């Protein structure tokens, strides 16, 4: 169409079915296209965001569909094309980075440049390491670096091979706020020069707005919205947004106490009191509180000696598989909480309906999404 100001560089049409023991089949069915620059894949855990990246990289094989990146067909079920991982030339930054712990920073970055001669390899690696501000760490091992530096090494390693597409799987989720801000600026700078599509998986609204020129919102393996980030996120509305950000727990209640000296407040809803981070609200203010299901820990015994301030006793009322994970609904003092755990954790805990459990979450796992004056 004339209106599209970008050249399509990535076209995807996918049908992926995953099944595992005692859980319903998870189906991912998406079709979209995008140009160069950062496209955010936004949605809750288990929505299928990472699955899309894995399919593009060739780490899993879709049942049906096709993947075309810059006129190169990676996968086509009808033409029986399935390019090997080696031939796709995909830059992938994994959520846990997957740096080679036994190799130096320099060796990590050089790893993908095997086709060049020794001299070219070194100069190219050095050039990119300088650009990422890592030139003084080239002899270090990854574990000797800070989280932000490790992140930069992973990015440098992915970018240096001049990939056809860059895939970033929640690259900032493990970093503190300050490092995150720095890296967002860096990412903007680095990606501006790259004339390739960049897919950026996140469940953080702020990252979507700060980085992407387009957002694709995913839920339960389907695209529910896409387009210009600000208007898409605005149209979704706060409660939907909170749920899609992974805040499956939304409670309406009031602030009943403020403790600025400790940086906390008390939030009450029904019979339940929670400690939440201090913010500019008044006592008696009605607010809507969100807690990400992934931020709630489950314990079979009463937890002791933990720094987490919120501990609630309850009973499991529902177990719902979601993607590769499991949503555990628990009733505590008449309130329903949803926690997200992995299947492995479920097998270890042997959770059953009606079982007594303790929910644990930090003060900072709670955040206010909306208030009424």
């Amino acid at each position, binding site marked *: 169409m004339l209106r599209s100001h970008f050249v399509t560089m990535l076209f995807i049409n996918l049908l992926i079915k995953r099944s595992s023991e005692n859980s319903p089949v998870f189906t991912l069915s998406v079709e979209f296209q995008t140009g160069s620059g950062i496209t955010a894949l936004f949605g809750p855990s288990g929505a299928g965001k990472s699955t899309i990246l894995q399919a593009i*990289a060739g*780490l899993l094989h879709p049942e049906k569909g096709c993947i075309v990146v810059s006129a190169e067909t990676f996968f086509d079920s009808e033409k029986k094309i399935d390019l*090997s*991982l*080696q031939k*796709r*030339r*995909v*830059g*992938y930054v*994994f959520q*846990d980075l*997957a740096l*080679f*712990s*036994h190799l130096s920073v320099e060796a990590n970055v050089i*790893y*993908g440049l*095997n*086709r060049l001669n020794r001299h070219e390899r070194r100069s190219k690696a050095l050039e990119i390491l300088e650009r990422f501000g890592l030139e003084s760490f080239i002899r270090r091992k990854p574990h000797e670096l800070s989280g932000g530096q490790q992140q930069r090494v992973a990015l440098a*390693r992915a970018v240096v*091979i001049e990939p056809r597409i860059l895939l970033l799987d929640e690259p900032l989720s493990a970093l503190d706020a300050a490092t995150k801000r720095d890296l967002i600026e860096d990412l903007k700078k680095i990606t501006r020069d790259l004339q390739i599509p960049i897919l950026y998986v996140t469940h953080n609204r702020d990252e979507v707005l700060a980085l992407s020129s387009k957002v694709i919102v995913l839920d339960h393996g389907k695209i529910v919205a896409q387009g210009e980030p600000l208007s898409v996120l605005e149209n979704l509305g706060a409660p939907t947004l909170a749920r899609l950000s992974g805040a499956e727990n939304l409670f309406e209640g009031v602030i009943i106490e403020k403790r600025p000296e400790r940086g906390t407040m008390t939030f009450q809803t029904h019979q339940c009191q929670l400690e939440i981070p201090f913010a500019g609200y008044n006592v008696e203010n009605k607010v809507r509180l969100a807690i990400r299901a992934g931020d709630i820990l489950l314990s079979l015994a009463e937890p002791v000696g933990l720094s987490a301030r919120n501990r609630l006793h309850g009973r499991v009322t529902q177990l719902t598989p979601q993607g590769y994970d499991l949503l555990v609904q628990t009733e505590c003092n008449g309130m329903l909480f949803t926690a997200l755990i992995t299947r492995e954790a479920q097998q270890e805990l042997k959770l059953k309906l009606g079982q007594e459990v303790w929910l644990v979450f930090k003060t900072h796992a709670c955040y206010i999404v909306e208030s009424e004056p």
Partner: protein
Amino acid sequence: MNIFDWSSIDWFPIWLSFRVATLATLIALILGLSCGWLLARKNFLGKEWLDSFIALPLVLPPTVLGYYLLVVLGNRSPVGQFFENTFGFRLTFTVTAAVIAATIHALPLMVKSVRAAFEQVPTQLENAARLLGASEWRVFFTVTLPLAGRTVLAATVLAFARALGDFGVTIMIAGNIPGRTQTAAVAIYDYVQAGKDAQAAALVVVVSVLALVIMYATNRLSHRALA
């Protein structure tokens, strides 16, 4: 008379054991790496049966194993005849047979350790290497093996000790020919049977010291592998 007779100690069995064990360890290492990798990384029909089959020497009486090997490798078997026609000598009751016996004794632990070591290497790292263009061989030698390295090294040292110590299978298929196939373990048995207690005791001390040193080395390696 002395308890230990160092003067008349025959070094041949120790030297032979050493050579046999070295060769057997090399073979077990190559077989162990390939089988361990297959078991850790590939899914195929009968995988756990293969694993059980490789582990058999751990639980079968050595005489039973030796019997099977005699049937398979003996000069009337197809394998034995092929070997005799091609290389001009018999397989059984030779040094080659001693190497086979030692290899089979060492292999099960080797495969088990290597499989466990490879399974501990995250497949994510291997995929990261593939996405950076690395061939399967390069992935194996630059990522999988280095990350499993210490455990594999510890397993190799232990395999050497196992190969050095084989008695049952060796005496069944390589026999007890002094100066030809008589390894240290077999020689000790021979000395005791012949009442040469002092010579037996000397060999026992040598073998025990060697075993202790190897065990110490293995422990050091596995501890550092965990750290």
